[in-house]
């Protein structure tokens, strides 16, 4: 399992610095938190890691691999998966098809085999359908398998997105505000799932602005404000840090 290491990363949009000189590390087997007020640059940082945006300065490594300049689909193939702040499902596709596209990264079928509809390609598709059904069962979503994902309730859509990210069997998962709009009970259930992933060796980066949720769940927390890293440390250190209190409550 590999760690994500971010060194001196900046991103300018014209003259505006959305993220400046950020250093952070996301180790495997731990839940790392990234908090900050709205507009702090959290989602920008995620987009820089996943190759959606290009880095202006600095470097990003995943294990031994330099992913600073790597396009989004190759970052995903390196084993970094993400969820989106505003849930993004394939709205017209069924729930099970939404999960199945998650397996794409590890599929063995070659393009010619798929074009010719060879037996091996069809067999793999059938095997993936079975695995998707098992995943649906684990998340208690079996009865929605054939429904259009776009028509599901909000909480169920969140789960579908999570299953899709897990289906890609990532080494590192980036969760962009996964419990936004959920009550404490629902958030707690998801939190348990995240802890379980970390116990199994996966790196988890949790982006939130709900300080309480992050401090109860994370092993280590970074705080971003106006594009700068203003604090980092254990949850206890963070909640008592005067800079963090100022950022959240004003001076």
């Amino acid at each position: 399992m590999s760690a994500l290491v971010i060194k001196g990363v900046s991103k300018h949009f014209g003259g505006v610095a959305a993220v400046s000189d950020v250093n952070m590390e996301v180790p495997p087997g731990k839940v790392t938190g990234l908090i900050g007020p709205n507009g702090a640059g959290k989602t920008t940082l995620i987009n820089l890691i996943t190759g959606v945006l290009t880095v202006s300065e600095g470097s990003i490594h995943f294990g031994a691999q330099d992913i600073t300049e790597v396009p989004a689909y190759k970052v995903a193939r390196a084993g970094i998966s993400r969820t989106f702040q505003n849930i993004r499902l394939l709205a017209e596709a069924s729930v099970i098809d939404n999960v199945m596209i998650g397996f794409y990264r590890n599929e063995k079928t070659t393009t010619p085999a798929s074009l010719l509809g060879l037996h091996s390609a069809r067999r793999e598709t059938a095997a993936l359908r079975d695995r998707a059904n098992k995943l649906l069962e684990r998340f208690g979503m079996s009865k929605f398998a054939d429904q259009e994902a776009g028509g599901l309730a909000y909480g169920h859509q969140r789960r579908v997105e999570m299953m899709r990210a897990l289906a890609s069997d990532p080494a590192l998962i980036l969760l962009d505000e996964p419990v936004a709009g959920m009550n404490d009970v629902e958030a707690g259930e998801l939190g348990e799932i995240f802890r379980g992933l970390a116990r199994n060796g996966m790196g988890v980066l949790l982006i939130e602005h709900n300080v309480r949720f992050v401090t109860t769940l994370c092993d280590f927390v970074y705080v971003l404000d106006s594009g700068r890293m203003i604090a980092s440390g254990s949850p206890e250190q963070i909640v008592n840090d005067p800079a963090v209190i100022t950022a959240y409550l004003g001076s």
Partner: protein
Amino acid sequence: MSDFFTVYHHLFNTFLLGSGYALSQWVVMRAGVFSVATAGLASIGAYCAAILTTKLGWPHPLSILAGTLLGTLTGLLLSVPLARLRGVFQAIATLAFVQIVVAVGLFSDSLTGGAIGLNAIPILVGTKENLLALLCTIYVLLAIGATRVGRAFEAIRQDEAVASSLGVSVTFHQSLAFGLSGAIAGLFGGLEAFQTFTLFPNTYGFGLIVAALSYVVLGGRRSVAGPIVGTAILLILPEVSRPLADYRNALYGVIMMLVIAFMPRGIVDTGLLYLRRRRLAAKAAAESRQ
């Protein structure tokens, strides 16, 4: 039955060729590309096949194969500059491509016969070949839909950001879709060349763009059956009711407006969706009774 075929033989061949062009249009849209290049790619396939046989004496199956390959290659090349464009900009760029192909056809008289047309092409292809080509095309498109590449196409069409966040290369798959579209258009262009005596550059102009798009929009953009049903309806309607034929274009226009307003998914996809929802509702009702 044999009477039926002697009367409607020509119409059936037109339907088979039209279905081919519709599927060429469909496959790019399936991968989320708004290209209208099918007409230009078909023209390239048709002229390539006809020229190789009439001027160089190639046997016609080989010429058709060459037309298919040239269509594929052109589609792949076209995808390189178009990879940076999206939506309506892709449509405009591919529209320009079709106009360029028409213009080249008109002005290179020595090769293509220009506006007078490329004449005296032997009639060597009939219903059997058309049907075989259409069945092969349908097989490949169904195979794609049932396996890995189809899932990638579907993800890209619905949300590119999601697709790439899961490791799907948008550029690769859109190039692949362009190549497939070129192969299908080139194949059916080549077949058409050997059943019309004469090729005119404008046969593959704006009219074919509109026709191929209409077939897909009317029939549906998801299932393979969509474009074929769309072709059947738009071609057969004016034939079965002769008075309508005089108003063919007006009729197309009215049908398109009605479909876009009331059935934006197209006839086949709307029907399939209705059946699926009914099945799910029945299943849910059965479960709640238990």
